[in-house]
């Protein structure tokens, strides 16, 4: 087939062109002479695997041999904490209070648009309150991307570990709020480290929202009967992180079991709010600043989310708003932040 077969010798280097036709010669080194050692080696390896499969299991990922089968219905693999399958809503164990404030961020970010929220309204005033009347997720179309869980500013929506969802009935996979509600203790059990981080960062954000829910609004439906009983006891005992958000008066909320630093943090936050309440007039003037008004609502939400979950770094109000703003920030951004903070202070004081 080749035009010049004699040209290929052992001394030629690889990819040397032959003749003028652009034909190259590829050389492949043969392995050394073998009289069946290769196959013997292979058979030894295989029989070792065969024997080890009876005696040992692959537990470590670096194990070379041993049984790796997990016989599913009887045994299950240990799921990693960050495993995510389908989103669920969290509520407080003691009070039944849901963490969702119906901020619609999850509904907005959901790529397949399977989240549908109805905001609750105060039956007396007809005003919207920060709680969900109904919360529906179409599980059959959910792609488990976890964006809702990432975006939720109140850690109200979390990814469940439950994965045995197969059914013949697609419509039955639309989950309403009653089906989605899970107690915090459940999530704490499946993801203790993640929940610890949440607790450390963001629990206090609920306080204001929960305060604004009248009656049974925002309470997990199956907990409604128990709520009235649970409320006073929770208020009295003040046990648990979530319970801190519950009571009517801020002072009573500081429980006995709380760590000192947490108490200190709560005190600082409350002080800040009280401080904000003293100057409502000023905030009203600052809030509609021309820079801030040009931005979209989403942008504001992002800056809020970025600042709010880090209360430890939030400076006390006595040092003044300017100190909190980083030095590397541009003037324009500083101004915007100032405006937002002022607005928040005004809002908090108004309650």
């Amino acid at each position: 087939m080749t035009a010049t077969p004699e040209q290929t010798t052992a001394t030629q280097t690889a990819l040397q062109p032959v003749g003028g036709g652009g034909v190259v010669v590829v050389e492949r080194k043969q392995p050394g002479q073998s009289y069946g050692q290769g196959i013997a080696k292979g058979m030894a390896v295989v029989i070792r695997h065969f024997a080890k499969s009876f005696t040992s299991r692959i537990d470590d990922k670096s194990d070379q041999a041993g049984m790796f089968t997990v016989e599913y219905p009887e045994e299950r693999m240990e799921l990693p904490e960050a495993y995510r399958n389908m989103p669920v809503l969290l509520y407080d164990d003691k009070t039944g209070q849901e963490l969702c404030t119906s901020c619609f961020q999850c509904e907005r970010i959901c790529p397949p648009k399977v989240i549908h929220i109805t905001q609750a309204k105060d039956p007396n005033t007809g005003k919207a309150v920060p709680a969900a009347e109904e919360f529906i997720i179409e599980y059959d179309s959910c792609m488990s991307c976890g964006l809702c869980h990432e975006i939720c500013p109140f850690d109200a929506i979390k990814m469940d570990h439950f994965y045995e969802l197969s059914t013949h009935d697609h419509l039955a996979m639309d989950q309403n709020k009653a089906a989605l509600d899970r107690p915090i203790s459940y999530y704490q059990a499946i993801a203790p480290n993640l929940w610890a981080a949440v607790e450390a960062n963001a629990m206090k954000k609920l306080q204001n929202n929960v305060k604004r829910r009248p009656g049974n609004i925002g309470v997990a439906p199956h907990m409604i009967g128990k709520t009235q009983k649970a409320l006073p006891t929770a208020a009295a005992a003040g046990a648990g992180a979530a319970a801190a958000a519950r009571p009517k008066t801020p002072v009573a909320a500081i429980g006995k079991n709380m760590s000192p630093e947490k108490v200190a943090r709560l005190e600082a936050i409350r002080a800040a709010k009280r401080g904000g309440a003293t100057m409502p007039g000023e905030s009203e003037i600052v809030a509609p600043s021309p820079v801030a008004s040009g931005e979209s609502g989403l942008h504001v939400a992002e800056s809020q989310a970025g600042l709010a979950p880090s209360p430890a770094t939030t400076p006390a109000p006595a040092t003044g708003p300017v100190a909190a703003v980083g030095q590397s920030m541009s003037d324009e951004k500083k101004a915007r932040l100032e405006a937002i903070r002022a607005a928040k202070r005004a809002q908090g004081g108004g309650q």
Partner: protein
Amino acid sequence: MDFIIGLIFWGLSALILFSGLMVVIVKNIIHAALWLIASFAGIAAFYFLLEAPYIGVVQILVYTGAISILMLFAIMLTRQVTGEGTQQLFKRWWVAALVAFGLFAVVIVPTIWFPRLPVAERGQPTYWPQSDRAAASATPAAAPAAQQEPQPEAETPQIAGAFEIGRSFMAEYLLPFEVSSLLLLVALIGAVVIAYEERTRRRRILTLAEEAELRRSVAGLGMERPLQASAQLPPGKSEAGTAERR
């Protein structure tokens, strides 16, 4: 026992003759080859029935397993598979039929009506007794069946089998054995030589360079594609198959 043997005999005869008939009259040549295999298998069973198991096994090994496969391969290599639309028999096939039938008639008459063979009556041992063999071979015509004594079963000599065949191939039939092995060797070499196709004439896949060279020469000579190969090639597709191992 005789009944079963008769049954098997007639069944096998029917199989052999019917499939033999199908071999010559069926249109599709592949079907003809398959009928031929059936016929060969029936004949092998016939040999078993005739208590020649070695010949039967050789029949299976050589005819059913090798020659028929060779025929199937030859048919597939020559691409004359289905006989649809073409005439499979000569126009004057009835002459052949007449000749064949005439021969059958000529052969069958003496076979049936004038049995002159030294075969015993039904139900009696039918070999020639050892003592009579010399006399029989000396005067083959004078070996009337009636003279034979019915032999007791205990004295029935062993029917020659594979062991005896091996013995006689190494002794009195050594020359035929060597000649047939020589014949096989010659046939092997002859078949290879006849069916061998020279490498240069084989349809081959060209490299791009060779193809370009070819195109240049064709353009220079002003003639159209002298090689069949280049016409078969989609341009640029040739290099994958050209890696030849040496």
